[in-house]
C-alpha cells in the first residue's frame, strides 16, 4: 500500500471517528440535564382554574427535578371512570409516577389498591393512607373544619344557627371538614343545619327565605365552589345581612373577601402541596425515603390579614 493510500484510509477513519464523536455529543446534549422523570398529574376536575397555586408548586418541582409533567384535567368534574381510564393509560404509557387528586367515591382507591404496577402514587388534597398509595400530601381537613368553627363562633351570637353549605360529602376531604366543623359546633352547643349545594337555584331560594326573618344569615361553605356560589348569591340577592365563612382560597374568593361578601376563609398552602407531592414522587422513584403522610399548613384569613406576611405567602406564592 502506497503512502497516499495509507493517508487516504487514515483520513477516512479519522473523519468517521470525528463524525460519530459529534453525533454522540449531539445526543448527550439532548439529555444534558440528566434523567428526565415522566410524571403525570391527574386532577379531579375539568378545569385547573381552582388549582393555580397547586400548579405553581408542581411547576417549581418540575424545574428543580427536571420532570416532563403531564398535567391532566378530566372531561367532566369528578368523573371517576375517566380518572380510572387515565390511570390505566398513563401506566401503559410507561410513566414513572402518578400524582392524583382522587375523584369522589371509593373507585379510584380500589383501583390503585388493585394495580399490579408498582409505580409511585401520590395522593393530593384528599386522601388516606391505603393500598397502593405511596404518600399523601394534604391539609388536615378535620382541622380545617375546626378552624372555621372557631372563627364562626368568635364572630357570631350563640343563638345564631349556622347553615353549612357543601357540594355534597362524597369526597372524603369534605366529609372530614364537615365532621371537624360540626364537632366543634356541637361541643359549643351551637345549632347548625346542612344545605347540600347540588342545585344552585334551590340554595339561593333557601338562603333568601332564611334571611327574610331579619336575624341575619350565618353561612359556612366547606369548599371553594360552594363558597364562591354562596358569595355570588349574597351579592346578587343583595343579602347584606348575610355573614359567610368558608374553606378554600383562590383569586375570586380573595376578591369577595375584599368586597366584604366573605367574612373570612381557611386557606391551605396549595403551593407547598404541589411542590412536596413532586418531591415525594421523585423520592419514591429513586427509593429515597418517602414520607407517607405530609400535612401542610393552613391559615385563617380575612380582609384585615390577607396581606399579612404568613397569609400573603400562602395566598400569593411566587413561582
Amino acid at each position, binding site marked *: 500500500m502506497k503512502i497516499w493510500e495509507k493517508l*487516504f484510509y487514515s483520513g477516512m477513519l479519522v473523519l468517521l471517528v470525528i*463524525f460519530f464523536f459529534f453525533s454522540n455529543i449531539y445526543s448527550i446534549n439532548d439529555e444534558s440535564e440528566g434523567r428526565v422523570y415522566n410524571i403525570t398529574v391527574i386532577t379531579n376536575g375539568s*378545569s385547573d*382554574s381552582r388549582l393555580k397555586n397547586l400548579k405553581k408548586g408542581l411547576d417549581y418541582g418540575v424545574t428543580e427535578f427536571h420532570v416532563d409533567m403531564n398535567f391532566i*384535567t378530566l372531561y367532566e368534574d369528578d368523573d371517576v371512570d375517566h380518572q380510572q381510564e387515565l390511570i390505566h393509560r398513563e401506566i401503559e404509557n410507561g410513566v414513572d409516577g402518578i400524582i392524583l387528586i382522587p375523584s369522589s367515591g371509593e373507585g379510584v382507591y380500589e383501583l390503585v389498591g388493585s394495580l399490579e404496577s408498582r409505580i409511585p402514587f401520590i395522593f393530593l388534597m384528599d386522601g388516606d393512607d391505603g393500598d397502593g398509595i405511596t404518600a399523601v400530601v394534604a391539609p388536615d381537613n378535620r382541622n380545617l373544619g375546626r378552624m372555621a368553627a372557631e372563627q364562626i363562633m368568635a364572630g357570631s351570637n350563640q343563638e345564631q344557627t349556622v347553615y353549612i353549605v357543601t357540594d355534597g360529602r362524597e369526597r372524603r376531604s369534605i366529609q372530614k371538614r364537615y365532621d371537624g366543623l360540626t364537632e366543634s359546633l356541637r361541643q359549643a352547643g351551637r345549632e347548625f343545619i346542612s344545605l347540600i349545594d347540588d342545585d344552585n337555584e334551590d340554595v339561593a331560594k333557601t338562603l333568601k327565605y332564611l334571611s327574610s326573618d331579619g336575624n341575619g344569615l350565618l353561612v359556612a361553605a366547606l369548599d371553594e365552589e360552594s363558597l364562591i356560589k354562596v358569595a355570588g348569591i349574597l351579592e346578587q340577592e343583595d343579602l347584606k345581612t348575610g355573614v359567610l365563612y368558608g374553606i378554600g382560597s383562590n383569586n375570586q374568593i380573595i376578591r369577595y373577601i375584599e368586597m366584604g361578601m366573605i367574612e373570612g376563609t381557611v386557606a391551605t398552602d396549595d403551593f407547598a402541596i404541589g411542590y412536596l407531592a413532586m418531591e415525594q414522587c421523585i423520592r419514591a422513584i429513586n427509593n429515597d425515603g418517602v414520607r407517607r403522610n405530609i400535612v401542610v399548613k393552613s391559615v385563617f384569613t380575612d380582609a384585615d390579614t390577607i396581606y399579612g406576611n404568613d397569609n400573603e405567602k400562602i395566598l400569593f406564592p*411566587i*413561582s
Partner: protein
Amino acid sequence: MEEKSLRVKGMIGVMFLFAVIMAIAILRKPGRGQEEIKLIKIGVAAYKQDDTYIATIISNLEELAKAYERENGIQVRLDIADASESQSIQNDQITHYLSLNYDIICVNMVDRTEAATIIDKAMDKDVPLLFFNREPVREDMDKWDNIFYIGFDAKESAVLQAGIVLDAYRDNPESIDKNGDGIIQYIMFEGESRHQDSLIRTEKSIQTLKDGGLQMERLAGVIANWSRNQAAALMAGFLEEYNDQIELIICNNDDMALGVIDALEWEGIDFANIVGIDATPQGVEAVLDGKMLGTVDTNAARCARTLFEMSLLLVEGKPLENDIQMEDGKYVWVAQSAFLGENDGE
C-alpha cells in the same frame, strides 16, 4: 495499471460507504411526517395566566385539545406555563419545553422586544413557534420561516370601541354628554406601556371619536397595566377628584373596565358609560347587566382555534396556507366585532 485501477475503485467504494453511513445517521433522526402520531405535545407560555383574556384563550385551547383527543384517540399534552410577567422565567420555561421535545410552543411574550433568544433556541431544535396576543418586533419575526403571529388588529379594536360610543351618542346625545356642554369629559385607562396595542388603542379610539364629530376633553389618563385591581384603585382616586365631571370612561381592555365598575360599586355610584375591549366572559356579563356600555369582541375562542389548528397542521407537516389565511406568510389576524349585549344589532 490494473492494480492501480482496483485501488482507485476500492477508495471510491470506501468513500461511497462513508457517504451511506453519514446519510443513514442523518436520516435516522425521526421526522413526524412519516411516523404515526400518537402524542402531540404543545407548550403554552403565557406572560401572566391571571390576565382574563389570556385565561380565556387558554381555557378554549384546553377544551379544543380534549375534544380532539376524544374524537381522534390521539393524546394531546397541552402544558401551560405562567411566566408571572418575568421574561427570564419565560425563557427558562421555553428552554424546558425544548429540552423535552415539545412539538409546538405557543408563546405569549412577556416582553415583545425579547423574542430573539427564544427564536434562536427554537431554531436550533427545529420547533415552530406560534406567538399570540403580544407581537414580537418585525426583525425577530423575520428570523425564521417557522414562526407565526396570531393576534388582532389594534386599530380595528379601537375603531369598533369608539363606534360603540358614537352610536350611543347619535341615539341619545344626553346619555353621553350628561352636562350638555357639547364636550365629552373622559378618563382613559391604558394597558402596559410595553404592549404594542396600548398606545394604538388609546390614540385611535380618541381620534375616531373626534373624527365622528365629538369634542373630547381628557380629565385624566392612566396606565393600569391591564389589571382590574390597579384600575379599581386608580378609579377610586379619580372619583374623589372628578366624580361629577366624568361622562365617559374608555379602557384598553375589559379587566380594567371591570376594575372601574368595582370602584363605582364600592361608592354606590350608578354609571355605565364605560367601554372595554376583549369581551371576556366577565366583560360580557357586565355589558349584559347594564354596567358597561359595550365591549369589542376580540374573539378569544377564534384565536385559540387558530392556534390549535396551526399546531396540528405543523405537527402533521402540512402546509398552513391551504387552511389558514395569513399575511406575509406569518401573520394571522383574528376578526373582531362590537358587543352591545341586548342592544347588539348583530
